[in-house]
């Protein structure tokens, strides 16, 4: 059994930075995953991320990225690339922690053999609990490489027979219904 982590990273209070946590919840609502696969909304971890990624065979992280491309553009980064091209890839607000975490995990000998970062170019990081239109439109595009990576690693998943609502409690509508009631 492969130990797999699919982790959504980002601040759900900062607009498109919440795309990682949102995608984690979207995956959970649509798919069923085999044993050993954990899908988690990680929030904005700093070095704590090391505890999440250590000892896994495969780690897929989903995060917003700030690059010179149209909002909603999906880019993939592999482990070696993230560690080597440190200045070239900028992922805010917590990218220093991602890079440092990987480098530390490598030193401690606990880094996952395989790591993929699925980055979604953001339009806005203004305080807000919802995603911008271009990012919303790119959600399926971001899910595709995640499923491909699972296939490549022979990790089982299937479409859920009873898809549920996306449990993104922070993404409230204008009426601001209580997330405690919604949960």
């Amino acid at each position: 059994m492969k130990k797999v982590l699919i982790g959504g990273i980002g601040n759900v209070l900062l607009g498109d930075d919440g795309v990682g946590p949102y995608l984690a919840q979207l995956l959970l609502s649509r798919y069923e995953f085999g044993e050993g696969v954990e899908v988690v909304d990680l929030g904005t971890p700093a070095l704590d991320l090391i505890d999440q990624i250590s000892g896994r065979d495969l780690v897929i992280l989903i995060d917003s990225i700030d690059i010179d491309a149209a909002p909603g553009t999906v880019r993939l980064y592999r482990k070696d690339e993230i560690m080597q091209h440190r200045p070239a890839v900028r992922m805010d607000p917590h990218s220093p922690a991602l890079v440092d975490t990987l480098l530390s995990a490598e030193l401690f000998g606990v880094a996952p053999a395989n790591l993929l970062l699925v980055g979604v170019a953001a339009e806005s990081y203004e305080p807000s609990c919802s995603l911008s239109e271009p990012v919303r439109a790119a959600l399926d595009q971001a899910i595709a490489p995640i499923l491909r990576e699972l296939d490549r690693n022979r990790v089982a998943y299937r479409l859920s027979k009873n898809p549920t609502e996306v449990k993104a409690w922070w993404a409230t509508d204008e009426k601001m219904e209580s997330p405690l009631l919604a949960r």
Partner: protein
Amino acid sequence: MAKRITIDPITRIEGHLRIDVEVDNNAVSNAWASCTMWRGIEKILRGRDPRDAWLFTQRFCGVCTTVHAMASVRAVEDALKLEVPLNAQYIRNLILIAHALHDHIVHFYQLSALDWVDILQIPKADPAATQKLAESISPWTRNSRNEFKAAQDRVNAVAASGQLGIFMNGYWGHPAMRLSPDVNLLAFTHYIQALEYQRKALQVVGILGSKTPHIQNLTVGGVANAIDLDSANALNMDRLEMIRVLLEEVVQFIHQVYFVDVCAVAAMYPEWFKIGSGVRNYLAVPDLPLDSAGTSYDLPGGYIMDGNIAGTRPFKTASDKVFRDSVSEDVAHAYYQGKAFHPWSGETEPQFTGWDGEQKYSWVKAPRFNGQPMQVGPLAQVLVGFAQSHPLTVKYATQAINNVQAVGGVRVTPDMLHSTLGRHAARAIRASMLAELAQKHLQLLTDNIAKGDYTVHNQPVFPSHEVEGVGTHEAPRGTLSHWIVIKDEKIKNYQAVVPSTWNASPRDANGAHGPYEASLLHTPLARPEEPLEVLRTVHSFDPCMACACHAFDPDGKQIAKAKIL
């Protein structure tokens, strides 16, 4: 002629702190601390249900999730004058302590130890001699030759690969690095071991909070943990036992490794007891309540003005009237409109004008207490505790003083605690107290449950008129306060005054420096182009700008750089 050095951002801290120092004759002659990110998350909370605020506030910062959740429920409870059942107080206290122990371990080993430890010296160490040295200062059973050898091999492998990896930002071989190869190896080995023990502390948070990184068990009025000693799905004897075992290991690491290492490093850099003092006004709030109403606490609070420890004024409660009435946030040098506001009437209207050291230069507001800058954090807590003869503070402070003297022959006086090393020593003292208190509060919880008390929650009742509340927590980085105004069961205003805002604050309307800034003045620099000494002092505060400012900088740089302008 004075040279200007900009460090943007400081390495190994989360977020976007920028430090500018002016250097004259190899010493810092002026300093500016600024944050390059805008803050305004509080606005999201307006109009929401106060019962939900904690879910949002724990997303302010990924490092300090639990502390913002806790301060938030306390703010609402303060506004409603709502008591919290004993079980809930103990469970909350255990979560707060376990989080703090995790945080202090990570701070010392992962974020600041490498300011003092020179990785390049490690290949020259002798693991057998290191073991002998380690055994002379601590009973830690993992101080073995094998563990030291394995750690040394890792460094050798990194050096041989030619890729410095995580070490690429260090100032290795800097003249201000002075530990012997064996001491460097000792500290580095504990740096590796620390990873395991901080995780055990987080596991305690996870068991009680049902999930990390974001706990799920809080409610306004208590906690949502079901207590049932006979149920597999509730807080039962098995889980209490798991927590006990985990805490035992963490407590041992704190007492036998972290505390001992800080004292040893301090003994070998005694000049740093005279550097980095800065603002000598201190502020700490009481925490770890021992009763439902919050009238007695295991950690004392109070404030000290102008270094007058004997004149410490205690706070009676965590929302003491003196504290409530004395806090304001000044924006004279911060990128906001308006003037100084009390947090209940605080506003967050941005007015970005670019970095100008004479005018506005930071996204951090300047919190002031009776108009004065205050230093917050473990040092503040230890000093106000010491002044009140708080037994645990006195116990571990005395032990630290004795340890430093035994290792380095340096006699530390209370006055020397106003320093860079004083902040590190105070954090180790605080961690040692918390370690002991973790076991105490687990026992209190177990005993109370054994008495048959399973109550965890009091129902909140909202009045129709407007109410105000403040929720405080003495967090790992110092005094945290959440200020809430509630009307018609909705949040009318919300402001978080976070520890790093106190410490990283810019100048105020009177021109008074914030604590980071003041602490850097007169710091000697061996090599201004490699300002290791500046990092040592800034890191001693344990900066975490992720919550001091909440968004990101569109023009920021990713890698820390020190450049001469």
